[in-house]
């Protein structure tokens, strides 16, 4: 059994695996997304919660752009039918010169990432406006003071409250 494991490990081309591909970018985006979730869950400060949201949105954008670069390439059958680039565009010239590694003809993933970026920036700007409004009222940005909607009639909450 160990010999089989060793032989299987030896058969893997580690040099080729180290070259960054779609999996590498997806794993990186996943890790950044998880870190964002952890910051949102663990952060007692409202500003850190918004930072966690930023991390999550950036991970989403990395996914879109990586998928667009590696999947939505000129070699795929889908894009050979639908192309928006004219023959005289600079992309065809660059592709003929062999300059780029990624020759995608339909950057829809980038458009999606652009829209996510814009809406994310709007959302975060609104969040910081709300944080300022909360600070003006409560003089703190701690999440534990935001208990206006907390019900005092719930017996489970009374048992677990601990004076918080």
């Amino acid at each position: 059994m160990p010999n089989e494991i060793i032989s299987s490990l030896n058969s893997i081309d580690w040099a080729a695996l180290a070259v960054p591909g779609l999996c590498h970018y997806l794993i990186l985006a996943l890790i950044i997304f998880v870190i964002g979730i952890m910051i949102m869950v663990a952060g007692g400060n409202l500003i850190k919660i918004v930072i966690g949201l930023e991390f999550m949105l950036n991970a989403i954008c990395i996914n879109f752009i990586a998928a667009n670069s590696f999947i939505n390439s000129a070699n795929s059958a889908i894009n050979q039918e639908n192309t928006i680039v004219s023959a005289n565009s600079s992309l065809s010239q660059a592709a003929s010169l062999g300059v780029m590694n990624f020759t995608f003809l339909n950057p829809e993933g980038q458009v999606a990432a652009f829209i996510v970026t814009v809406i994310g920036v709007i959302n975060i700007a609104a969040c910081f406006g709300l944080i300022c409004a909360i600070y003006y009222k409560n003089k703190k940005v701690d999440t534990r003071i935001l208990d206006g909607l907390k019900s005092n009639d719930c017996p489970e909450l009374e048992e677990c409250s601990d004076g918080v």
Partner: protein
Amino acid sequence: MDTLNAVIFYILSAICLISGLFCLFHKCTFNAVISASLLLWAVSGLYFLLGASFLAGIQMLLWGVGITIIMMFSIIMTNKDDKDGFLFNLKTLSVPLIGGIFIFLILPFILYQFSGLVNLQSYSAGDFSTLLYKNNAFSFELAGVLVFCVLIGIITILTAKRIMKCRMK
């Protein structure tokens, strides 16, 4: 050049992960904002590696500069009673400083691999905008309307107290 791309990818990924973990575990909010800004700049470097130079520029402008400034202003306006204070020492700022210097040094190396840089920029902006306005015009317009509504909402929330006082007078 592929080896250089791989090395730069792994270094940028390490910067992203280290700054993310630093932001997660550090108590001082200001240092967390600096590490988050470093992650946003590293992500823009990843966009350059993926061939999305236009989006990388947008990432740098919107996230790396704009959102960082908004975060810092929000900390300044809401952090008067913070007893921890801003920890401006070499220990806490060493990682963001080193990462920031590295990002600014490697961006020319990333761009250097594109020998037809001018052509690529014109492609990225021209065809990208064509697709945006031609096929995705509705979502783009919707985002604009959303910006407008959010701006009105923020102004209303922040000036509500003043409006109430004026009405009571």
